[in-house]
């Protein structure tokens, strides 16, 4: 500024000093150039100011959008043209003459709506966040690389590219994404690129594989081998079995109890300890472990629902199929809805941006949906070194390590090089360099997702499936993460199969615990249960199939199926379905939005009975007790009782599991249904005793103290909030993928919680809801998700579906046989 004043002063200075003035002009120009360079550079996380505010280059440009709704365009593809018709919701309906062009246009349309998300998630999976957000992502990047997400993706890519069809799918899709990227000028980049100052990379089949392995990590890395090993050692088998029961009761598995298995177990191997193949009894390690990266694992409350009811139970006399996968909800949304149509294929549903084809959807003949199998597909082994740590104990000798050298590029800094020791089973993930583990506590991990597989082929097959045989044929290619694939068709068949390549486990030491690497039985580890022997049922007598992340089978199944299972949602769903007849699509929507808290229904009466009410005479306590007593156990948005109950239950959990709060040993809390059953049926359970006191507490004392703490909690809460209503208390939020509050939606008016069919919690929930009704002989589909089709926060379609989703309503999805039909429908709604 002082510069400015001095030059104004200069105007009147000297008439003849033209030269001086010219020189000053040059000086000013130089200053300007410096200013421009300065304004064109990002500083830390602040974007380049000049560029960012330029109305034709920066953020204003992103607000200057033409919405896709009710528009269409023709796209030059590989062989010919494809037509993309966006309907009134911004759902692309894509029509082409052949599959290559169809997938090319799908890639193009996905990129049009979600390019940043596709780029971001695949960078995340590849352990490359440091490149864009700097050193703070180093631990995260190292974790994803060490556990092997990029390694698994590389093998997956190779396996997919060996298959002619998969290769065509991936290459066409990739070409479509890249066609969009190539046409995109810098000023039209999605806002997140501008904010963080980087550019989209070219797409590739490898990136599709990264996306699939990202999902595999998300859906299997709740593994708790470390925590369970510690619990077993600290509490002994009797208490351990109560905390993590292998057979939840009451029993309500995916495959109805009593279903006969018409096959013989292939497990003819001699049991551990017989010495064959060098395998030894898996000795229990003597150490207690600390997992420094528990916060990078997936939570154990991941879940999803799916079910199908047969025509015998529906008003239309044909099946209805439903699916709502629960994931951490995000903006841009996890899912995008699309219709893909070419000769021989007409499929619609939800897919994940970056994935070709449809993942949960329907075609003219069948419908299918997915929930997570929750099986344990990770084994953890303790490593024993030779003297200079270049080899590990294996059987009676030592094997040399190989090394996976990872070069991590960091924005604004030197590269970080992480050299990871590799064994026959997998990487030594936790060691002195990662987690600062003492030598005798280093752990190697085997992860099923690292085996080569072509999971894409399964979805390709489902997209094309015409009948039940096609469905089964498609599934055999699907390996990891294990999913429960529900099925229904227009010919009145319903089915469900838990599909994945699961490790063959029949013995103790089944993968739930850390075992010595030296004794690992490689043959056994890599052998899988034959896919045709996976849990499966077709047209069961009860007239419906369902799954909600519970244990897949009863004890008659000849293999171990250990995992982290839910045992509440499944029982609500099965109870409703068993007692329903003459079902209409709307009834199924109501079930997806069902807010019954079975946890409260089964636990609250016992909790209230333990409570000595005479001790609580203050207004708030009396109000809380009264509210809870008159509650019907439905966790609805405007009720106060769910806030009181869930806070109270949480306090009970805090007091009960105080033994698990160690800072030096990693432990994991049992599922809520476990605590519920202990409270009701086993009030003398050892862990109800609090370590902080000398007296011996039981459920009663714990419940009482927890109530006092709950009253204290709400006394403080109500000083800052108007009321304790459930919706405000739980504050359902759909977060932006990069955790930017400004692009997130908070305080959504919706009920539900973990372990409720409507599993909408604070950040997690039904990320896609679909109901497909074959009542008219053709599929009539309803769908919705907590977000919108367009990933641009400035778009009307960014989060437009959220209010309707929150009120348990759906959009009827337009599913067109021909381009002309779609075009006509678009013109009618304009």
């Amino acid at each position, binding site marked *: 500024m002082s510069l*400015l004043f001095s030059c104004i002063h200069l*105007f009147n200075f000297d008439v003849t000093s033209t030269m001086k*003035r010219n020189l000053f002009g040059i000086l000013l120009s130089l200053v300007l150039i410096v200013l421009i360079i300065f304004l064109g550079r990002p500083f830390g996380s602040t974007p380049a100011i000049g560029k960012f505010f330029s109305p034709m280059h920066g953020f204003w440009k992103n607000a200057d959008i033409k919405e896709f709704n009710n528009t269409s365009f023709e796209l030059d593809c590989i062989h010919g043209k494809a037509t993309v018709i966006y309907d009134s919701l911004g759902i692309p309906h894509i029509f082409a003459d052949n599959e290559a062009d169809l997938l090319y246009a799908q890639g193009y349309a996905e990129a049009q709506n979600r390019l940043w998300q596709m780029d971001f998630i695949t960078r995340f999976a590849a352990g490359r966040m440091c490149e864009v957000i700097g050193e703070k992502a180093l631990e995260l990047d190292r974790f994803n690389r060490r556990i092997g997400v990029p390694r698994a993706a590389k093998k997956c890519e190779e396996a997919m590219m060996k298959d002619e069809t998969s290769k065509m799918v991936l290459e066409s899709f990739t070409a479509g994404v890249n066609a969009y990227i190539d046409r995109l000028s810098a000023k039209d980049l999605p806002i997140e690129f501008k904010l963080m100052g980087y550019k989209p990379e070219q797409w590739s089949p490898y990136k599709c594989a990264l996306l699939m392995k990202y999902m595999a990590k998300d859906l299997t890395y709740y593994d708790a081998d470390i925590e369970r090993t510690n619990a077993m050692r600290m509490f002994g088998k009797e208490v351990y079995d109560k905390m993590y029961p292998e057979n939840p009761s009451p029993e309500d598995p995916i495959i109805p109890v009593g279903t006969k298995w018409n096959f013989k177990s292939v497990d003819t191997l001699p049991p551990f300890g017989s010495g064959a193949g060098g395998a030894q009894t898996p000795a229990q390690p003597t150490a207690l472990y600390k997992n420094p990266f528990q916060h990078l694992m997936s939570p154990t409350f991941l879940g999803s629902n799916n079910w199908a009811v047969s025509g015998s139970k529906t008003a239309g006399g044909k099946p209805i199929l439903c699916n709502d996968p629960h994931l951490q909800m995000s903006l841009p949304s996890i899912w995008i809805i699309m219709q893909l149509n070419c000769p021989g294929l007409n499929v619609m549903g939800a897919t994940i941006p970056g994935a070709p084809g449809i993942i949960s959807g329907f075609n003219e003949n069948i419908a299918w949906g997915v929930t997570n199998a929750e099986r344990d597909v990770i084994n953890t082994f303790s490593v024993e070194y030779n003297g200079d740590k270049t080899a590990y104990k294996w059987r009676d000798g030592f094997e040399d390590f190989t090394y996976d050298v990872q070069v991590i590029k960091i924005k604004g800094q030197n590269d970080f090089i992480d050299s990871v020791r590799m064994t026959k089973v997998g990487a030594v993930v936790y060691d002195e360099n990662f987690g600062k583990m003492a030598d005798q506590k280093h752990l190697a991990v085997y992860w099923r997702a690292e085996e080569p597989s072509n999971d894409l082929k399964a979805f390709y097959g489902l997209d094309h499936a015409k009948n039940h045989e096609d469905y089964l044929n498609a599934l055999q290619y699907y390996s990891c993460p294990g999913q429960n694939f529900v099925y229904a068709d227009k010919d009145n068949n319903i089915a469900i199969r838990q599909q994945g390549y699961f490790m063959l486990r029949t013995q103790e030491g089944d993968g739930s615990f850390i075992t010595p690497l030296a004794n690992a039985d490689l043959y056994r580890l890599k052998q899988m249960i034959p896919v045709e022997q996976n849990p499966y049922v077709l047209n069961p007598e009860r007239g419906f199939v369902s799954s909600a992340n519970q244990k897949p089978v009863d004890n008659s199944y000849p293999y171990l199926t250990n995992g982290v299972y839910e045992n509440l949602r499944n029982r609500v769903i099965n109870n409703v379905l068993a007692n329903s007849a003459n079902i209409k699509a709307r009834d199924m929507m109501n079930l997806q939005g069902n807010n019954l808290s079975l946890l409260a229904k089964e636990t609250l009466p016992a909790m209230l009975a333990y409570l000595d009410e005479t001790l609580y005479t203050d207004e708030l306590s009396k109000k809380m007790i009264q509210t809870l007593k008159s509650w019907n156990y439905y966790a609805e948005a405007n009720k106060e009782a769910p806030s009181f109950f869930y806070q109270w239950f949480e306090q009970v959990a805090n007091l009960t599991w105080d033994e698990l709060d160690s800072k030096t040993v990693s432990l994991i809390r049992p599922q809520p249904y476990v605590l519920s059953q202990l409270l009701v049926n086993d009030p003398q359970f050892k862990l109800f005793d609090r370590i902080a006191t000398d007296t011996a507490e039981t459920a009663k004392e714990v419940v009482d103290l927890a109530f006092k703490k709950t009253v204290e909690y709400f006394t403080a809460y109500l000083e800052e909030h108007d009321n304790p209503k459930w919706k405000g208390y739980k504050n359902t939020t759909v977060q932006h993928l990069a955790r930017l509050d*400004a692009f997130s939606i908070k305080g959504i008016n919706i009920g539900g919680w973990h372990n409720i069919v409507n599993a909408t919690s604070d950040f997690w929930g039904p990320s896609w809801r679909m109901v497909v009704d074959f009542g008219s002989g053709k599929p009539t589909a309803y769908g919705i998700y907590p977000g919108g089709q367009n990933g641009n926060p400035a778009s009307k379609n960014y989060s437009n579906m959220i209010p309707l989703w929150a009120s348990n309503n759906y959009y009827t999805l337009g599913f067109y046989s021909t381009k002309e039909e779609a075009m006509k429908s678009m013109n009618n709604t304009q």
Partner: protein
Amino acid sequence: MFLIKTILVLVLSFLLTLFLPWWSVALAAFLVGLVFANKPGNNFIAGALGAGIFWFGYAFYIDIKNEHRFSGMIAQLFSDSLQTNISSAVLLMITAFLGIILGGLSCMAGAMILDNGIRRKKAFKTGKYTLKIK
């Protein structure tokens, strides 16, 4: 003349912006300054006005069309990271300010570089201009 300069800066920055990066607004004002080289102060105001109107006007037009939806989000983004309260209006003001500074200084710099002193000599002769020497 002043009005012509202002309009020229406005139109040229618009045209250049279509093909060039964000700093094209400075380039446009600078080029106009070179052509009308004799009145640096006058040029500053013309450049500031031309570029300012363009940046502010275009941003404002987009903002209205988008119903302030997105500018509100970006304002919140700045508010969150700077721990202050920034509104859409502040974003528009920053946009206008950047346009004014870039346009004004560039137009003036252009004027000064090619200034041959003719106008002031003329003014001096006709007595319209008085010489002050410190």
